[in-house]
């Protein structure tokens, strides 16, 4: 990873007033969803399920706002020409940009800590499930960050990058791929059902099952999207 680019992008995000608006909107949405739609106060929440259940869709709305500028702004301002003529490999640039978005997303996830502490005061917490839920939310952030970086690299402006990132994220989270998979694979064994679905893998983790397949699913998807991002950036050089 190129730490200089990572630090610069982080600094650029936090020096921008919109960063704090993004954080505020995220907190507001997360807490409103947990308390009003998730009935946080009336449901037994030893694993904070009412909080984590809404997180994927909220993150799908917020993470594109963090990632939208990562490549689109470099192209718009022309600084991409500087960046690509610095002695930095393209793969390092991709990782640095992705790491910036993921770091900010992880900081955002930490805003759940006050709720965790308060809940812990009143009821005993299920630490195993909580650990798995945090892993789930971080892995979801990884994929959404990679989606965001990719959509930023294919968009001309940050606004288009946000919309594309939002659509991709919402689609990925809410679409079930069972029909698609069974169309391609007619005699699909039953245990393959839901293998590509976000909800199956996310809920496995929320239920405290830290299974290997779910981790591979999220990590694989992240690598695939980053690879597409790499191809896109290499494609700019070729034009």
């Amino acid at each position, binding site marked *: 990873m190129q730490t200089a*680019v990572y630090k610069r992008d982080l600094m*650029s995000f936090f020096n921008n007033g919109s960063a704090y608006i993004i954080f505020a909107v995220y907190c507001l949405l997360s807490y409103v969803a947990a308390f009003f739609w998730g009935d946080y106060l009336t449901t037994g929440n030893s694993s904070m399920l009412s909080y984590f259940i809404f997180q994927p869709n909220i993150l799908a709305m917020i993470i594109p706002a963090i990632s939208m500028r990562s490549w689109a702004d470099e192209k718009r*301002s*022309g600084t991409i*020409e*500087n960046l690509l*003529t610095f*002695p*930095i490999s393209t793969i390092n640039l991709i990782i640095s940009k992705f790491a910036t978005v993921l770091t900010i997303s992880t900081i955002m996830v930490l805003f759940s800590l006050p709720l965790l502490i308060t809940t812990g005061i009143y009821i005993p917490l299920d630490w195993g499930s909580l650990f798995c839920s945090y892993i789930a939310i971080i892995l979801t952030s990884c994929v959404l960050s990679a989606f965001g970086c990719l959509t930023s690299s294919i968009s001309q402006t940050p606004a288009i990058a946000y919309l594309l990132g939002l659509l991709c994220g919402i689609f990925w989270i809410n679409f079930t791929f069972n029909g698609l998979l069974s169309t391609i694979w007619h005699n699909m064994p039953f245990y393959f059902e839901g293998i590509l679905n976000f909800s199956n893998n996310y809920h496995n983790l929320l239920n405290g099952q830290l299974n290997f397949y779910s981790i591979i699913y999220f990590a694989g998807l992240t690598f695939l999207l980053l690879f597409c991002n790499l191809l896109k950036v290499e494609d700019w*050089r070729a034009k």
Partner: protein
Amino acid sequence: MIEVKNLQKSFDEVCVLKDICFKAKQGEIITLLGPNGAGKTTLMRCLCGYLPTNGGEILVDGKPLTAELTQTLQKFGYMPENTPLYSEMKVFEYLKFVGEVYKMSPDNFKKRLKDVVEKLQLNDVLTKKISALSKGFRRRVGVGAAILNTPKILILDEPTEGLDPNQKTLLRNFLKEYAKKALVIISTHLLEETEALASRVIILNNGRIIKDTNFTNLKKEAPKGNISRFFYQLTHTED
């Protein structure tokens, strides 16, 4: 130091560089001269690895540029056309960022920063935001960033474009000084630039080199010493 052999570059079906051949060594200032659209910027972008070529070869110290691009780019300093910079950063922050990208040691960075600031007279703007700088200062910051790592090959795309006469003189004197220990390649469409720098001149037209000479010879060749007229004839007969 740098050798270009039969370089070709096309965008889609349009060939913008055709059979470009030249050699350049340390201690030279090369002015790429040509009308708008002659291929100067494309050639510079190819020389610093930003654009891949469609044919031919660029050798840097005898090795192909693309063989170890990241390492080879350590030898380059490049300032693109219009000097794209991160406008939200302060001048010092930007130069520090560039120093980190080139992995300069803190001591070396301090030494080089002092030198660059002194030679390009950036002292007064070091703590100012780039967005608040005049065009002249932005250019100087761009040049400062390009030379911070003491590159052996300095490539500047229209460095004096839009500067006032005093700033032009400052920059030209600086380039003459710098070229004693490096190869400097600049592009311009101003004849006065080649005269002021007393440099080697490569005239490009329609993507081809139509003249590779020095200013004194160019003046001798020009009918009645009228270089402007001669340049006009050269770049129009080739159409």
